[in-house]
């Protein structure tokens, strides 16, 4: 039996490079961690976050939580339900509108359909700009343009989604199997024929599945559009918070949660169905 010290001495002679971890790597990693922690602390300090404020605020939070129980509606439940339906309508119409705009944009933005670099590049940059601005900012702008109400919310969702969906659609078109397109083209089809006969059946399920996914996400964002006056349940939510009616707030949140969950479930189910149903003809083409 050898002692630990003997063993270390022996191995440090035979395999010194293995015994001691590479100091450059070791200290590099430690320095990175220290830098990260310092950056975090400095950022917190710069933003004025202090543990003291956190703890004093925590007691207020506890008061809110206690006043949330039991949730009440004070006779407004019908208005809440109507606002919730309006929220769903905003999300639905916003998604439909975005999808309809994104179909032509998706084909225009695809390199294999429109070979013009200028159109392709320009369109993508415009979409980048649209996408870089949050839905809520668009909602605020549309409230200025078309006035308070759900219409502003629909336009905001439609615009922001177009920025993302058109890009996804364009990528789907570019990824569409080229052989099928060549088949139609060799049969004498025009560019439009290729788009309609070869690409469309392949990309349609992708379009549909993505639009459904966006409907799901939009339901979540539509719940807060009312905060800036763009319609839906968010208006009541913001209003009840403003007047500190916490039990009403709890009631509204309890309305929103199952609705969002139900839409999630429905969308997932439809997505599975859509992909299953449209896969086969696309493949057979």
């Amino acid at each position: 039996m050898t002692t630990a010290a003997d063993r270390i001495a022996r191995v440090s002679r035979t395999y010194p490079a293995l015994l001691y971890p590479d100091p450059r790597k070791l200290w590099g990693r430690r320095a990175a961690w220290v830098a990260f922690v310092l950056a975090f602390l400095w950022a917190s300090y710069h933003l004025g976050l202090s543990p003291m404020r956190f703890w004093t605020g925590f007691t207020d939070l506890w008061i809110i939580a206690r006043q949330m129980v039991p949730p009440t509606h004070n006779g407004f439940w019908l208005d809440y339900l109507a606002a919730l339906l309006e929220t769903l309508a905003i999300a639905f119409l916003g998604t439909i509108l975005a999808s309809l705009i994104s179909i032509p944009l998706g084909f225009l933005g695809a390199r294999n359909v429109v070979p013009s670099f200028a159109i392709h590049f320009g369109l993508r940059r415009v979409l980048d700009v649209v996408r870089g601005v949050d839905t809520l900012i668009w909602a605020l702008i549309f409230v200025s343009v078309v006035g308070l109400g759900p219409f502003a919310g629909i336009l905001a969702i439609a615009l922001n989604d177009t920025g993302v969906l058109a890009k996804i659609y364009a990528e789907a078109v570019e990824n569409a199997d080229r052989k099928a397109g060549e088949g139609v083209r060799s049969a004498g089809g025009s560019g439009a024929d290729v788009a309609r006969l070869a690409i469309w059946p392949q990309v349609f399920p992708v379009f549909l599945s993505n639009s459904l996914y966006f409907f799901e996400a939009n339901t979540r964002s539509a719940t807060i559009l009312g905060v800036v006056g763009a319609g839906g349940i968010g208006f009541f939510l913001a209003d009840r918070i403003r007047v500190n009616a916490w039990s009403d707030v709890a009631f509204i949140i309890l309305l929103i949660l199952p609705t969002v969950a139900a839409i999630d479930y429905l969308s997932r189910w439809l997505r599975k169905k859509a992909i299953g149903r449209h896969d086969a003809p696309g493949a057979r083409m």
Partner: protein
Amino acid sequence: MTGPVTPKPSADIVTIVEAQRRDLQRDKRRQTLLFLGVLVVLVAVSGHLGEVSWQKFVNGIPRFGSYISRTLPPVSPETLWADLGRWMWAGGRWVGLLFDTVLIAFVATTLGVVAGFFLSFPAARNLAGGVVHYQLARRFLELMRTVPELVFAMLFVFAFGLGALAGVLAIALHTMGVLGKLFSEINETISDKSLEGVVAAGASRDQVIRLGVVPQVLPAFISYTLLRFEINVRSASVIGFVGAGGIGQELMFVINQFIYRDISAILLLLIITVALVDIVSEKIRHRILDGEQRR
């Protein structure tokens, strides 16, 4: 389809292809019509609920156009720099606010990731200590994920006062919910078989996770974290609408007061900021994932 080219065969082939397609899809057509019918009904009902009318579109779209054009600054080639300078008259302050916005996203992402990381193990079916832990962690993450950030922000502004603290906490909680769930799904892809070597060597539960699970899931965790950071920068740009810090408050002010030039100036700076963050984050992600591949 690539047969010999005889005079004018193409039209025939196209019709044959068309006919075949029609055959294949005839039985599908009824279903498609039904689908379209349901869609039309839903659009009509939603249109009624959403107070949409053609009139609104016809009026609204030109008005949006003129709104946008009004936000654009007058720039002439002779006085280019002076014009730009006047446009960005508060540029320094705006950049400072945008910097705060990115910092809010950074601090909130960090807090959310750490909390989501630790919750992702009890929330993974294969690693949870028991059904109770699993259900508790799952339900908690679900709640944090479903409540919109802005709602958290409004509640926190009441509790913690105006300022970045409320925004950071709101985004951190939401991030914890989203990433905790994503992480737990990644954890569930780890097979029990690969962990047996660590368990059989005498590791305790947390050591099994540290030595067996973490090395395998870390690249995916980092990738999702950086993506979330990009999203959080966007979120941080609007939490100021409810007074929770960042550029949002200033942006809301200039939009509501119709200070057109400032709207375009701030939005331009915001878009540049978001694009820069995306580029940097992508670079880091690629470097980490490539390094992982090479090692």
